[in-house]
């Protein structure tokens, strides 16, 4: 994810487009050489750029799907680690469980950002986004399930009554052996 973002996204600060610039310059200052018809070249150029754009959006869509599927690997790894951590409460299992909870949540918070580079009028991002969200929710569910198996979720009656004060008695009686 990080890598893709770097290459495609805001990582690129400047670019030199030699072909385009030359045409633009030549069209303004220098006359076309003889036998050169600009119209055909222009037309040709536009078809090339359209093709190029199509390729790019295809590539973007593909990348978006890839990014959307990335949490799946994570999920598997998390599952493995949870299995390794066991079902008792100690530092390791608590750490893993909390990271398993935290990762999907932070990922879900940054859904827009993750798919920012692939934003394009033509690219359909809804599918990858939904998949991304679904997978992360899956991760979250796994985390919550782990939390529950550790007994840290108040899903039992015991969690709700453990601090109930004793019921008051209406009657009061005292006495004993005479002094």
């Amino acid at each position, binding site marked *: 994810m990080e890598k893709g973002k770097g290459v495609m996204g805001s990582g690129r600060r400047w670019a030199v487009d030699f072909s385009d610039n030359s045409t633009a310059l030549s069209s303004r200052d220098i006359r076309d050489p003889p036998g050169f018809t600009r119209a055909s070249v222009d037309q040709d150029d536009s078809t090339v750029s359209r093709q190029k754009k199509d390729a790019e959006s295809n590539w973007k869509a593909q990348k978006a799907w890839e990014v959307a599927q990335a949490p799946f690997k994570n999920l598997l790894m998390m599952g493995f680690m949870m299995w390794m951590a066991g079902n008792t*409460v100690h530092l390791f299992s608590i750490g893993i469980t909390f990271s398993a909870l935290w990762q999907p949540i932070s990922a879900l918070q940054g859904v827009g950002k993750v798919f920012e580079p692939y934003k394009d009028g033509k690219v359909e991002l809804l599918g990858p986004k939904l998949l991304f969200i679904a997978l992360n929710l899956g991760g979250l569910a796994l985390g919550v399930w782990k939390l529950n198996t550790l007994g840290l979720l*108040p899903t*039992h009656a015991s969690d709700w009554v453990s601090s109930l004060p004793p019921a008051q*008695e*209406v*009657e*009061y*009686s005292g006495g004993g052996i*005479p002094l």
Partner: protein
Amino acid sequence: MAIRSFFVPFLLFGLYFYSSLSPVLSLYEDQVGLMDWHQQYIGKVKQAVFSTQKTGRRRVIVSTEENVIASLDLRHGEIFWRHLLGSDDVIDGIDIGLGKYVITLSSGGSILRSWNLPDGQMVWESYLQGPKHSKSFLLVPTNLKIEKDSVIVVFSNGRLHAVSCIDGEVLWKKDFEAESFEVQQVIKPPGSDLIYVVGFAASSQFEMYQINGRNGELLKHESTTFSSGFLGEVSLVSSETVVALDSTGSILLTISFQNGEISFQQTPISNLYEHFSGPAIIIPSSVPGIFAIKTNAITIFIRVIGEGMLEVAEKTNHETAISDSLPLSEGQQAFALIQHAGSEIHLAVKLAHDWDGNLLKESIKMNQQRGLVHKVFINNYIRTDKSHGFRVLIVMEDHSLLLLQQGTIVWSREDGLASIIDVTTSELPVERDGVSVAKVEHNLFEWLKGHMLKLKGTLMLASPEDVALIQSMRLKSSEKSKMTRDHNGFRKLLIVLTRAGKLFALHTGDGHIVWSHLLRSLHKSEPCQSPIGLNLYQWQVPHHHAMDENPSVLVVSRCGPSSDAPGVLSFIDTYTGNELSSLSLAHAVAQVIPLPYTDSTEQRLHLLIDSDKHAHLYPKTSEALSIFKREFSNIYWYSVEGHNGIIKGHALKYECTGKVADEFCFDTRELWSVVFPSESEKIIATVTRKLNEVVHTQAKVIADQDVMYKYISKNLLFVVTVAPKGCGEIGSVTPEESWLVAYLIDTVTGRILHRVTHHGAQGPVHAVFSENWVVYHYFNLRAHRYELSVIELYDQSRADNKDVWKLVLGKHNLTSPISLFSRPEVITKSQSYFFTHSVKAIAVTSTAKGITSKQLLIGTIGDQVLALDKRFLDPRRSVNPTQAEKEEGIIPLTDSLPIIPQSYVTHALRVEGLRGIITVPAKLESTTLVFAHGVDLFFTQLAPSRTYDSLTEDFNYALLLITIVALVAAIFVTWRLSERKELQEKWR
């Protein structure tokens, strides 16, 4: 709700950490004395004998009413050594034999022991039997010898014994089997080998036996009849003359038996003292030539001159006390006389034959709170100018022991604290300007020095001397003995009522006496002849809206030993010890029931039940009455009649039917009764829960997150009955004819919730009741071992409350008030374990919110207090607990309870004669304050689950400090490095 779910992981965390810790709570050597204190006492002195040996330090040997024999340092009053004989081994007499043995006669004259004077080791012990019960006398004559053996003469159980002083062998004995013979005196005149035994027979006959001290041969037996009989004791006025009173108490009889001839001389007291009226009594003393009688408030000293002639030496209406005579040189005898005069006492030392002259006359200012002088013991010493100096040991009304010498009190011992009847606690004042009483002010230099030392200690740089200094600083910390309330609630006042009727306030920090007060209402007075203090109750505990009031306690006492004697109430301010008021009641006090209601000044309502089963409400204010009337129909009371085996429950009815209209008096009617069959069961123990016990929760979470609901009721009574045959000592019955039945009875409805029979078990039973469980201790005759049993009560009718959603939304009735008339479905779980020790007292720790796990505090036969985790007494223990149960903290079942030496709360100390253990919660939830009392006092703080809410004493502050310093240094260094690097980057 959010808080609760937040709590769950914390609780589980706590549980986990707790289960990973070892349950042993022990103390490091240098922590002894930081939290605990121990005070040693001996009790009210009965008899004192001064060691006459010139070598070694001056000592006095005393025997006390707590059955202690002790050797005290005459310079400071410290105890050299001390032995506590059992409560059934009452000391009858002590003396010193051969200057190096302490001889004691005890158990009604049947046990004679000899102890080594310097170190208190027992030298020998003899059992003396006799044909019948009688008074016992112990004589250690200096000049009687049989074959170079020094002899001790003992009269006990109707037999005269001569016992060797060296090895306790009985040299000869002589029986006095005459049916009605009552021995009054055993006399050994100095300078002869004769022993006289005088006494009364058939109440009107005077008998005299003359016995050869060398072989026990009866030389002469004379008797004379005196028609009008005898009253009380006789007083010895010379080695061959005694004085007695006739049965009307108005005629003095001088009985002389010189040379074996008995001669009487009668002198009506009215001849000596014309205003005489009413019977007189003889004050027992042994001053030659002088005796004292007391009539009404007047004490008359009478001189015997010549042949039975009597003459009044002095009449006084001051309270007086007279010592026994002390032989001085040249055959002179001296005695001490103490008279009260206002706030002073006058001490006079006189020679026996010279009443008018004084060897010594001093007046000493005496604290009024010590009351009257009860006993005087005199001792002399030779001054450097070869004249006689006198020191006097006096025993006061409050049981304290004082040494007077040269007109001052050299030392005093508060031995009244050896016989505590009841204990309660009180908070100290809140710290405000001018309230603090602590006067310990350090100057800056000392303060700095102390902190430097402490720093050195924590950084482990201190030398051994420094360590000792730091330790003494820790022990003497003024912080713990401050007279104000502290944040953790460790500093409190222990209010104790002693048998002498004196109230003491002890500071929990170091055990010093903050104030002491001899109760005026417990003084002898006209309407109240022999008042007895009974109990202490917290009368007013101001908090919240009544902050300005001082807390006060209620002392309930009674005029006389019978249960229908009128009661006396006194109210004592616990900050100052002043008696706020006292009430002489018109009715008796059979029971005191503190009610769970307080009025607007935080005075607790108390219901006093008199012997006619009328209930009286106190305080007698209209406000209290209106509060009481509101709860009227919900108040019940019960009485346990141990002698006929009946427990009765009563309800209240309006208005007394008595003669005087009293709106604070209520009639009662009997509701129910539980009658135990007298031929098979006898009540030996009853226990209830403590009124002020706080329970945190009604649910018990067990393995697999299941819930059990505790049956928590304040109105439960635990009763133990035994077979009437099994009431005696252990081993006096066979297992087949002894059984023990334990009952749990609801005291409102009389319903028996649980009943269990232990066959082949025997008392004595000690029990403790807390939350929903009872633990009791008894003897198993079949296994020949002591057992501890636990019964836990659970409420089955609540067990269905398992729907999480209902609980989340609060749609349950678990916390709504319940009536005991609705039938509870109680199930019990119980288990029994062997226990090594026999037990003197059982208590349980109590904490402020009841969250902390509990420990049982067991007073063992060795006078120590053992802390035993309640987890060991869990009826859910099994031989092979499942994994989940192990996680819950269930210990695998064993047949006996472990005694871990480190879990003795009293560590190396002993609380001699342990009688009671009191636990008081501190404000800090983890901590409970424990006070154990007997002849000694012991106080400590206890954290049953360790101090999870504060740092412990042994927390490694040094490590913390070093870590912080290292971290700060690291931050600085890296910051500088990164700055430099950044600069270099920029220049590149």
